[in-house]
Every structure is written in structure tokens, then in C-alpha cells.
């Protein structure tokens, strides 16, 4: 029975992420258009909001190309290996008082650890495409995602230290407003390293359009590419919501059911900020990215963690 429930939850989570991705892509196209003196989608639906309704069936039913030189099983299932961990990570986000889809005792660790598995999917896809540009993209992605995992985890730890628990639901229960200023630096580190973690601009070097064309998913067409994109937007949604919950108070910002609305709204604002950064900043280079991670972000995250520890001990 619990297996059946699990299946159901899984399907629901995928639907939610897919829906979120559809809205997200539309929103990104609008945001980027506004930034670039354009209008963005206009024709389908009000303000082009149903543009993705046309795009999705088209992508779904494009020819499913598997290159002759590709390593077929890896090539086929790599998109899933990227998407599944990200979809799983959404489950531990606390949406309302005392409720998360999957109320794990070590939920925060789960959230930090599981999406990193998608780096394996990226490596699979890069390897299996049998394409030099993909290979470079895959190697870049692996280095980047493994490195940025460190400041990201450290920054979340500062909240967990204050809360004294690893369970996101319990963190939300213990949350107090002064945590926002106390962990604000950690929040910035979390936001930056999350962007790097999901390979979005200005840290999109694994898929750098100007040099690698599309990087590790250069050889994916149609539905398989759509799954990659869904993974990217899913990661963005998960990171925004988790950040909104842990660092900005999530549903505790407003009382009752309004809290959930506020939580989603804060998440959406974070998503917009992530998009905004992508469309205004140039891209870093591989070595600059690593330098930034290890010499700037990680020390700041450690200092933040130390400060949070001092506060927690002093209380």
C-alpha cells in the first residue's frame, strides 16, 4: 500500500515540477524579453502564457534521435538520471505547518545530497553522446557541481545549527524572524551556489552557448532534451522554494493558509532573481569559477556557519 502511495506521490511531484517548468519557461522568456527590450511570447493565451502548451507537444513528438556513435543505454536514460534526483529533492520541502511531502528526519541532508546525484546523469549524457563538445561540458559540470556542493551545504548548515535539527519541518517550527538577518550572508552564498549547482547563468559554463553550443545535452533532441530542461527548471524551483523556506521563513511569514501563498510568492521572487542574473551577467570562465568557489564562497560560508554556531551557543 505504501508503495502505491509512493508511486502516486512520485507522479504528483513530476506533474507539479513539469507544470512549474512550463510556467517557469514562459516566465523566463518574458523576463528575458523585458530585460532585452523585447516583448516575448505574445500570440497564444494572454501575454503568450500558453506558449509552452504549444512547445511541449511539439518537443514531445519530435524525432527521437539516438546518434549512431552514441552509447545507447546511457544515452537513453541519462536525462532521467538528471531529472529524477531533482524531482526527489522537492519532496522534503516543508510547504505548511508540520507538513512536507516526505517528512524525513534528515530531510535537509537529503535535499543537499540527492540533487548532486544528477551529476552522474550529466556525465552519462556527456559520455554517451560521443561528442567532444559534450565531453568537455560534462567534465566541466562534474567539477563545478561537486565543488559548489561545499559552500551550499555549509550555508544551509548555518540555519540548521540555529534550529538544532536536520528535519526541515522542525526547522520551520523553530524558525524566528531574526534568523533572516543572522543568516543573510549564508542566504546569498546559498543562492549563488545553487545557481552554480543547477548550471544556470552566470555559471552555465557546462552548457556555454558561445563555446560549447549546448554542452552535455548538445546531441539530445525532442523529449529527452525537454527532460533536461525540466530538470533545470525543477532544480530552480526546488532551490528557490528550499531557500525561501530555510532562510526567509517560508510559510511562517504570514499566518495560516496565507503562509503557503507567501511561501510560493517568495519562491517565485527568488526564481525571478535567478533568471535576472542569468540574463544580465556574463559567464565566468572555468578557472574563475573554481577560484570563486574555493577562495570566496567557501570561506564566507564557513564564517557564516561559525557565526551561527556562536549565536546558537550564546542562546
Amino acid at each position, binding site marked *: 500500500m505504501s508503495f502505491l502511495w509512493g508511486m502516486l506521490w512520485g507522479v504528483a511531484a513530476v506533474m507539479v515540477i513539469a507544470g512549474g517548468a512550463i510556467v517557469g519557461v514562459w516566465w523566463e522568456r518574458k523576463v*528575458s524579453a523585458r*530585460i*532585452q*527590450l*523585447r516583448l516575448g511570447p505574445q500570440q497564444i493565451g494572454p501575454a503568450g502564457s500558453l506558449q509552452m502548451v504549444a512547445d511541449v507537444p511539439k518537443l514531445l513528438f519530435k524525432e527521437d534521435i539516438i546518434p549512431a556513435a552514441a552509447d545507447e543505454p546511457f544515452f537513453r536514460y541519462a536525462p532521467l538520471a538528471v531529472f529524477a534526483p531533482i524531482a526527489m529533492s522537492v519532496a522534503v520541502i516543508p510547504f505548511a505547518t508540520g507538513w512536507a511531502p516526505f517528512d524525513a528526519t534528515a530531510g535537509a541532508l537529503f535535499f543537499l545530497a540527492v540533487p548532486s546525484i544528477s551529476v552522474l546523469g550529466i556525465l552519462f549524457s556527456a559520455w554517451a553522446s560521443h561528442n*567532444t*563538445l559534450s*565531453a*568537455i561540458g560534462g567534465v566541466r559540470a562534474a567539477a563545478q557541481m561537486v565543488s559548489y556542493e561545499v559552500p551550499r551545504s555549509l550555508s544551509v548548515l548555518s540555519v540548521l545549527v540555529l534550529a538544532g535539527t536536520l528535519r526541515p519541518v522542525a526547522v520551520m517550527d523553530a524558525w524566528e524572524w531574526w534568523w533572516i538577518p543572522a543568516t543573510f550572508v549564508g542566504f546569498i552564498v546559498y543562492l549563488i551556489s545553487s545557481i552554480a549547482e543547477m548550471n544556470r*547563468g*552566470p555559471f*552555465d*559554463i557546462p552548457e*556555454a*552557448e*558561445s*563555446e560549447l*553550443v549546448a554542452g552535455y545535452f548538445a546531441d539530445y533532441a525532442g523529449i529527452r532534451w525537454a527532460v533536461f530542461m525540466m530538470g533545470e527548471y525543477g532544480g530552480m524551483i526546488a532551490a528557490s522554494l528550499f531557500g525561501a523556506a530555510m532562510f526567509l521563513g517560508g510559510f511562517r511569514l504570514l499566518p495560516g493558509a496565507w503562509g503557503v501563498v507567501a511561501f510560493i510568492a517568495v519562491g517565485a521572487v527568488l526564481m525571478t532573481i535567478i533568471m535576472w542574473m542569468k*540574463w*544580465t*551577467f*556574463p*559567464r*565566468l*570562465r*572555468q*578557472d*574563475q569559477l573554481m577560484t570563486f568557489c574555493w577562495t570566496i564562497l567557501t570561506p564566507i560560508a564557513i564564517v557564516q556557519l561559525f557565526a551561527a554556531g556562536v549565536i546558537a551557543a550564546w542562546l
Partner: protein
Amino acid sequence: MTEELVVNIGPSHPSTHGVCRMVTTLDGEIVRHVEVVIGHLHRGIEKMAENRTYLQVVPLTDRLDYVGSMYANWAYCRAVERLAGIRVPERAEYLRVIVCELQRIASHMMSVGPAGADVGATTAFMYTFAQREQVVDLFEQLCGARLTYNYVRPGGVSMDVPEGWVDNVRAFCRSHPSAMAEVDRFLFGNVIARQRMKGIGVLAPEDAVAWGASGPVARGSGVSWDLRRDDSYSVYPRLDFDIPLGSNGDCYDRARVRLWEAIESCRIIEQALDQIEPGPVMAEAVPRLITPRPGEAYDHIEGARGSLGVYLVSDGTPRPYRMKVRSPAFCNLALVPMLAEGHTLSDLVVILGSLDPVFGEVDR
């Protein structure tokens, strides 16, 4: 030293600025060797010119450097005028200067913007492109074409300016510097863009001279060589303008020099508009079939990419016996293997973009 990886970039690639193929040998991310394969747009314009009359070659020169068509028009027309001994009316010279400086702005916008796009800031490209669109609109009002103008003809220009055009140009020249300041702030002021462009692809001044680099590529390295001043032609001696120079010779300086040149061009245009006087725009009695006496003539102008020269050989018939275009982008592009060595793959596209090649002109 790891195993070397050969990566083929192009001929169709988002940041090759046309159809250029670069066979890159990588050691990890570091570029060890680049072989630039050009000629994917070799259309045989020099051969075609041998079977066209002097006037019929003008549309072909439009398609050489399609980002700066006016320059190729002008360089070719100057060579023909020298060959046939045609004197150009003063108003036509002023108009040529005005349209060519406008073209310089349009062309540099197609280089400053992509410099941003190459490092990942697509939005900068949109902003500079919006400026270019304004220039293109001005050209459309002037001669009806957005891209291939065919405006400068042997003996003058094809038509006088329409009513109100001068005011539109003045309005554009007033608004352009502030738009450039904005681009300067959000592209060249950005810390990531600075990090990506500074110290990348450093071209030493002596290398720039030895390799025949010209235009903003040479000036970015501090080589003060501008034909507008140093081999002054047309009415440029009467105009007062500065020549921006870079100091480091890296991608940042090259892009920055273009940005400043685009602002200087506004100054030149404004002065030219003040000085221009009514008069004919076409020399009298320029025949449809220009038949110069046998001989050879070479003339060059400072195009947006450097010194653009046209070498014409006449054998006394109405058709050129040989036309050769000295293309600045061709010479500048030869620098890529030298500049890119030792930098990373990401820098390679930045270096290529900073040389601003236009493949219509490189391949001819």
C-alpha cells in the same frame, strides 16, 4: 600534459561570427594549437569583377563587408576615381564621410555587442543592436536599403539626402553617446566581463605591425595608425577628432576602443553636418561605361575593421582587368592562432570576437 583532444568549432557555430572553422587542439581546457580554416564564404567576387563594368562592381562590393557596406563602396569608388581621374564634388565627399561614420557606428555596434555575447551577456548585444537599428533606419531613409546600400558611386553618391534626414542624424548623434555610456557601464563595468576580457589575447604592438593588423585591433595595442589622420583622405583634414588607443592590447582594450570610436564618430558627423554646403552630389559627365586608360591604382580608407584597400588594374576596356580587395579582417584573423595559444577554450571565442572578422570580407 594530458592526452590532446581535437575539437572542431564551426563552420556553423554561434560565436564564430560567420562561417569560420577552427580546428582546436586542446590539452584539458587549454588551447595548444588552433588552425583557422576560412573560405566557407569564398564567392569569387574578385573573379566576378573581371566580367562586370566598373559601375556594376559597386553592388558586389556591398556584399564584401556586409556589416560595413559603405566602406567597401567608398574604397572601390576611390580606386575607380583615381584610375579614371574623376573629381568628386565637395558635398559628395561630406556625404561620404557622414554615411561612413554612421556605418562605423553600425559596424562597431555589431562588434561591441557580440563581445558581450561571447562572454555570455546576450543582453548587451541587444542594446547595441538597438543602436545599430537606428543607424540602419537612417540609411533606409537615405537610400532605401537596410544593408546593401550601393550608395557611394564612382563620381559621388547616388542621391542627395531626403528632407529631414539631417535632423534625424543630429538627433541620433545626440542620443548615441549616452547609450554608449550605458553599454560601457553595464558591459565593460561588469566585474565578470572585465575578468573575462582583461589580459586575454594580448597582442604586442610590434606583433600588430608585423602581422599587418590595422584598425581597432592595432589601436587596441597602442599602435597609433589611423588612415583618417595618417594618410588623410577626403575631407578628414578639416575635421577634428581623437583616435582612441588601448594600452594593453587585450580583448578588453580592443572592444573598448571600438566603443570610443563609435562615440568619436558622432563628433565627426556633427562637424561634417555643420560644414556641409549645398551643391551637386555627383561629378559631371561620369559616363555609364567608365573606360579608364590602362594602368593600376590602389586606394585605401580606414574602414571599421582597419585599412581597406582596393587595387584595380585596368587594361583600357570598360571592365577591370583585375580587382583585389585588401581586406583588414583577413589580416586580423591571421592573428588568432598566435593570440589563442595558452588560453582556454572559453577565451578562444572571446579572442575571435575581439578581432571582429566579417567573413564576407575575409573570404571575398
